[in-house]
């Protein structure tokens, strides 16, 4: 892919609650290149969730430009934004967020089905990805039959099954014990080593230290504390 995976130019995001306007992000400019492993670090309320929503095509900026995989997010309607999200972004959430009453394989196949792929092909691809993540024997288990670490690996499989330009991981170890959390981080590191672009959002500096590049966010502003690892 030519050009950066993500580019933000002078981004401002305001929220209106009643009569008051809250500025969650202001003057944010950043660029994430292909194959980078970037951590966005900040305390709660710093605006990192807002930043994640913008990078993840879940939200649009009030002013400024957000480009993901070369597309100007602000110009897309809801369906087009959803398509871009489905194609370009793979989400990993803190609480895993596997679909309830749905087997591991069907969780992983779901993004492919929403893109219009056939059930048989989608399930075959999902089984393949789960097998590479060591979950080949857990295909038909639903989330109640999987440990936290296993659930997060299923979630990672679901995030990468579409071969997205970017994996967006929001506190991916937050609900895991340190051993499982470390395994998840190792998995993300090895995926990055294979060329996958990863953005990790965390409040934990020690986890952020695993990334190659760190962006600190505080009070809605990205501080130029980019330090190469």
């Amino acid at each position: 892919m030519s050009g950066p995976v993500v580019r933000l130019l002078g981004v401002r995001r305001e929220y209106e609650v009643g009569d008051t306007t809250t500025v969650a992000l202001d003057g944010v400019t950043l660029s994430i290149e292909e194959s980078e492993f970037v951590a966005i670090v900040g305390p709660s309320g710093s605006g990192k969730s807002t930043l994640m929503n913008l990078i993840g095509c879940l939200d649009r900026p009030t002013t400024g430009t957000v480009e993901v995989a070369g597309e100007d997010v602000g110009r897309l309607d809801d369906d087009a934004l959803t398509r871009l999200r489905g194609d370009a972004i793979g989400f990993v959430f803190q609480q895993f967020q596997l679909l309830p009453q749905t087997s591991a394989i069907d969780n992983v196949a779901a993004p492919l089905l929403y893109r219009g792929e056939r059930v048989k092909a989608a399930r075959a691809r999902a089984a393949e990805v789960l097998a590479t993540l060591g979950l080949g024997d857990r295909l038909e288990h639903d989330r109640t039959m999987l440990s936290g670490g296993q659930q997060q690996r299923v979630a990672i499989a679901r995030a990468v099954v579409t071969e997205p330009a970017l994996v967006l991981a929001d506190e991916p170890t937050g609900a895991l014990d340190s051993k499982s959390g470390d395994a998840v981080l190792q998995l993300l590191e090895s995926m990055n080593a294979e060329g996958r672009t990863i953005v990790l959002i965390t409040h934990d500096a020690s986890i952020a230290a695993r990334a190659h590049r760190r962006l600190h966010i505080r009070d809605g502003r990205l501080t130029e504390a980019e330090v190469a690892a």
Partner: protein
Amino acid sequence: MNLWTTVTLALSRLVAARTRSLLTMLGVIIGVAALLALTSIASGATSSITGSFSSLGATTVTVTGTGPGALTEADADALRGTPDVTLVATTASGRGDVAFGGDTEQLALVGVDAAYEAVQKPALSVGRFLPSFPGGAEASTVVLSTSAANALHITAAEVGQPVTVDGRVFTLVGVLDDATGFNTSGTAYVPLTAARDLFARTPYVSSVLLAATDTAAVAGVQADADAILRARYGLTADDPASFSITNPASVISTIGTVQSLLSLLLGGIASISVLVGGIGIMNIMLVSVRERTREIGVRRAIGARRGQILTQFLVEAVVLSVAGGLIGIVVGIGLSALVALIAGWALAISPVTVLLAVLFSVLVGVVFGVVPARTAARLQVVDALRFE
């Protein structure tokens, strides 16, 4: 995601939460079952009534005078000339006190002529009908309907005993069989001449019965009889007449109208319960959308468009209502069969009603699924993901 995948997904969800699904469907199940059972019972009951009516000589046209002296012997003689008529019987009706043992009942008293038995073919449970040529001792004979005999506490063994009619002694020669549906009210039949004596009116004709050659001729006989009588009285076709002419077909068609109205009424009531069932589905689906807000957020995040979420919830509502409808059809047919078995009539389930019930449940699912599905589709992804 194609529709079939969405349907199988919805089905597996509903099976996973089967108690809740069943309770949600209950309204539609009861509604559809009631719809089917009630309409089937209505049509079973009316076809059983219609059946017994047509067994009573579907070829008899009855001319009845609407007041005393409205019809005469001369009218009856004129009606004998009606084309396609094989037999003509005349009757003279009134009321009389009939006494046996210590009991006295006021009954309908019908004087019938010799042709009456051949025209109406009354079925007897005991004894015989009135003699064809009443004379001498035979002139004072009487036949009672079952209910009249029961009212007077007359047993089968007492046929042949004397019975008093308006103070005159008659011999009881037979009792009619009510089971065929022929005159189930309390009636005493006596020879025409005896009736005229009792009423002290000669000649007196209250109705004339015309036996048409076959059922196809009935309508023609009715029209011809009307024309003959109007000509005799100098009436045009639009003038009010002092007689009315009925045939069994018109009674049967009246019953048919009653059946349609009854089915419509019962069907309407049952449809309301299907609608209430639909509201139940909407209610649960709205709760479900709220409970599954996060799931909806995740689905939207991983690439589900609004339309796909809308379809998912709409399909779930339709699957619920259709499943309820199908269960309702099975229950409804079972109920109808049970009632038919107990009442002893043929089970009447029209495929049209079944098809309508299915279509109706699809419609209910769509109508009441739209609101929850739109609510689900309109959720903001960011808010839905953060929803606790």
